[in-house]
């Protein structure tokens, strides 16, 4: 068996006295789309941020391509090919769209910047229309596209997405997930953290369900979609 691209081994994580993750183990293989679903406060975002060491796990190991990155700095991880679209999008409000995208090149330098900009504008034509506009003037969906595009600017091997559907209209969510489907079809490895279980599981090869900082269930996207527990808890029981 080959080495997984990303692997969590029995990871514990604490915020002071509060335990956010308990013995979490999961793995993402190269080329896979994996989603992690769970309710508010289950620890999903903490898990994602712990890959960048913010905060650091209190026990266990995080491995990226077999290398232990549990104690590595964020920029080391980023230059290794992990990129993230953080929760709440967090685009730079006072920078133009193009400058936001250029910020994404920080881990790899600007050598491919022109080529990658062109690629991003092909993927997200809306961003090209707005390339000289300040990011704060974009709509929520456009900001999410910008956050994803910014992450892609570092030519990642692993794309981490934290709630790309957060606060977006259903039609925009559909667009975003269509884009993710295209990216996955193009061979990108995606690790997706979502509350919108329906969309996330339909997109994913495999999924994990997190409850109170623990992995409760795992399986293929279809298995989880059909699982009665998942259906009642996350899919509104229909």
């Amino acid at each position: 068996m080959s080495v997984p691209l990303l692997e969590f081994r029995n990871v514990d994580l604490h915020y002071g006295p509060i335990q956010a993750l308990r013995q979490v183990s999961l793995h993402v293989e190269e080329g896979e789309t994996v989603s992690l679903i769970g309710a508010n406060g289950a620890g999903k975002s903490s898990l994602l941020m712990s890959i960048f060491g913010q905060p650091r796990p209190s026990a266990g190991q995080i491995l990226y391509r077999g290398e232990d990155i549990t104690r590595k700095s964020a920029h080391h991880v980023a230059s290794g090919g992990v990129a993230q679209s953080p929760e709440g999008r967090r685009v730079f409000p006072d920078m133009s769209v193009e400058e936001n995208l250029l910020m994404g090149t920080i881990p790899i330098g600007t050598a491919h910047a022109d080529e990658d900009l062109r690629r991003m504008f092909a993927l997200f034509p809306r961003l090209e229309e707005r390339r000289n506009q300040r990011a704060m003037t974009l709509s929520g969906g456009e900001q999410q596209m910008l956050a994803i595009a910014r992450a892609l600017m570092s030519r990642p091997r692993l794309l981490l997405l934290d709630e790309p559907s957060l606060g977006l209209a259903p039609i925009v969510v559909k667009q975003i997930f269509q884009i993710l489907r295209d990216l996955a079809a193009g061979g990108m490895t995606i690790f997706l953290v979502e509350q919108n279980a329906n969309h996330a599981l339909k997109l994913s090869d495999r999924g994990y369900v997190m409850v109170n900082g623990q992995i409760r269930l795992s399986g293929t996207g279809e298995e989880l979609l059909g699982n009665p527990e998942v259906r009642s808890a996350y899919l509104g029981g229909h």
Partner: protein
Amino acid sequence: MNMPERSSLDIRQPLLDSVLAGLIALVVFGPIVGVVLDGYGFNLQPARVAWIVGTVMLGRFLLSLFLHSVIGRGWLQRLDGGGAGVQVLAPDYRSRLRWIVPLVLLAAVVLPFFANKYLLTVVILGLIYVLLGLGLNIVVGLAGLLDLGYVAFYAIGAYGLALGYEYLGLGFWSVLPLAALTAALAGALLGFPVLRMHGDYLAIVTLGFGEIIRLVLNNWLSLTGGPNGMSVPAPTFLGLEFGRRAKDGGVPFHEFFGIAYDPNLKFLFIYAVLLLTVLLVLYVKGRLIRMPIGRAWEALREDEIACRAMGLNHVLVKLSAFMLGASTAGLAGVFFASYQGFVNPTSFTFFESALILAIVVLGGMGSTLGVVLAAFVLTVAPELLRSFADYRVLLFGMLMVLMMIWRPRGLIRISRRGFAQRPGVAP
């Protein structure tokens, strides 16, 4: 959304405003002006209060009336300037500056031929504050790290020259780069412990740092002479001195070049070197802002969490901002010391830090041109207002309040040029 334009003037709102302003004036001035202590008793002076309140009400009424007129509304809208933040200019935007900048440069070159000593010293002081403003602008304006102890680096530069001369026999030229380096090291020293701090906490720590440096200079009598200060050598040009007679039997500058002795020579020289330094710093800063590091500073100001999520090395970015800002202040300190010929700790109080911060804020956070302008306004204006010396700080405060109401983003809003489509690359 706009209200329909009213053809006739609405008198009610101005009246209301004026009554309100009158009430406030009554509360503020009533006890202060109206009750005069007289020995152990007091007497009331209602007439004086009435005068002041009346003036305030009339003024407020007229202002309100004007702002409600069509002209006034247009004026207000222009002042508002369309919200906050950075302007992104069109890629082919050509600013009027390309005419103004050469003119200003020309004026700067011609100035020494006409200026008397007084004007020259005022301009030198202005340029020193330009340097300080530019340096702090990197830290506060671009990287968004509120530094209230910036004057410490300024002091390090100034005392670097004084101490270097006293104990190591160094002169102006050798200290200039050394001071920049030392100040940068001090910046790193301060930078490390505050890497994890933001906002208020950072401000407090830097404030403390500024005071520590000043207090050390003030109290280390054996090294710095404490409040008595230290003398600073006059700068030299290729070893030629600017005095009437050179020390140690050397040849002074004016004899070497066969020109008449002019007591202003020293200031002319400082002015020339300072001007070149300012231009160099302006150029370097202009380049840095366009480089990834400049973008990283601004990104850090706008959203630190996003920066971390993108794997920005925030240690490097913060430290570089601190160090570059500090080294600029170190340079300014050397110029200040040689311009004064003397340093003592009273030049480096918290008020200086506040003044430099005011330059950055009034100029427009991050805006280079604004900072240059504000530095001159805030250093030259007090000179022009010498006859109002007693009210200087009051005027200063009023200026600040008005600025924050009408131009909260500073005199000149930071603007960035949009990107043009690169020929042959972008679709």
